[in-house]
């Protein structure tokens, strides 16, 4: 029988804590038969599927809230602050049943264009007239 071994690190002094999720179900972690590094640099740290048209968060991870600013503009508030502002984000928009709403998507960090570790401000513009518009599917993720 294969075994699981928890091993400390003599060169460090911190405590590593495994925290159970808030659940009443039994969850199973199945490890692949290869070496892996969990949650290291470059992994997806937060994501959200947000409907800007109905102003509803369909699902998310490590996102505490979304602030609807105005048409086509919203702010994603991360549950936990990033250690710096050099995280990578991807913002996608779509889902509107309209041939004229071809999304052009961009983002700025925080208010006034300054980067912050706690939030991401996103905006979209339809390509016909450049005006901001809500999209039914707003997908945002952050990698760090």
């Amino acid at each position, binding site marked *: 029988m294969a075994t699981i071994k928890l091993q400390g690190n003599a060169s460090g002094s911190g405590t590593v804590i495994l925290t159970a999720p*808030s659940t009443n179900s039994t969850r199973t972690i199945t490890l692949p038969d290869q070496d892996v590094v969990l949650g290291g640099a470059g992994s997806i740290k937060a994501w959200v599927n947000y409907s800007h048209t109905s102003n509803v968060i369909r699902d998310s991870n490590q996102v*505490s809230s979304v602030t609807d600013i105005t048409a086509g503009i919203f702010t994603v508030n991360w549950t936990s602050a990033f250690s710096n502002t050099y995280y990578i984000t991807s913002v996608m928009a779509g889902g509107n049943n309209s041939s004229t709403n071809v999304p052009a998507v961009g983002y700025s960090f925080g208010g006034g264009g300054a980067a912050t570790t706690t939030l991401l401000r996103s905006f979209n513009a339809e390509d016909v007239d450049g005006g901001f518009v809500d999209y039914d599917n707003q997908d945002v993720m952050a990698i760090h």
Partner: protein
Amino acid sequence: MVLVPSDNWLEEAKAGLLPPISVYWALQDDEQQAMAEGRHDTFKHDPEKHAAQWTAPRIGPLTEEEAIEYLIMKDIPRHIWSVEYNRPMFKIVKTADVPSDRQFRNAWRLAA
């Protein structure tokens, strides 16, 4: 502006998994100071303060209303809710009470 809470985050709040709000404020203060001093491009959080998001003692289970108040203090700029104005600056309502029409949703403003 309308703030929409994440259901997953609300579950964590109700389960008592949140750190004291002061942990987030300390991080926000440090970052704001870096911005004010023009060194935000190279800013990096103090590792101990950053780790406190996970290592600080949890505050215990919150009711839904308490969780929303906590979320406001975490995600809404402090000048909006910490200063007394001569008119209400925000209102906590059920989702069903938020206008779905953009014209009326835009009438809800948080910024001063």
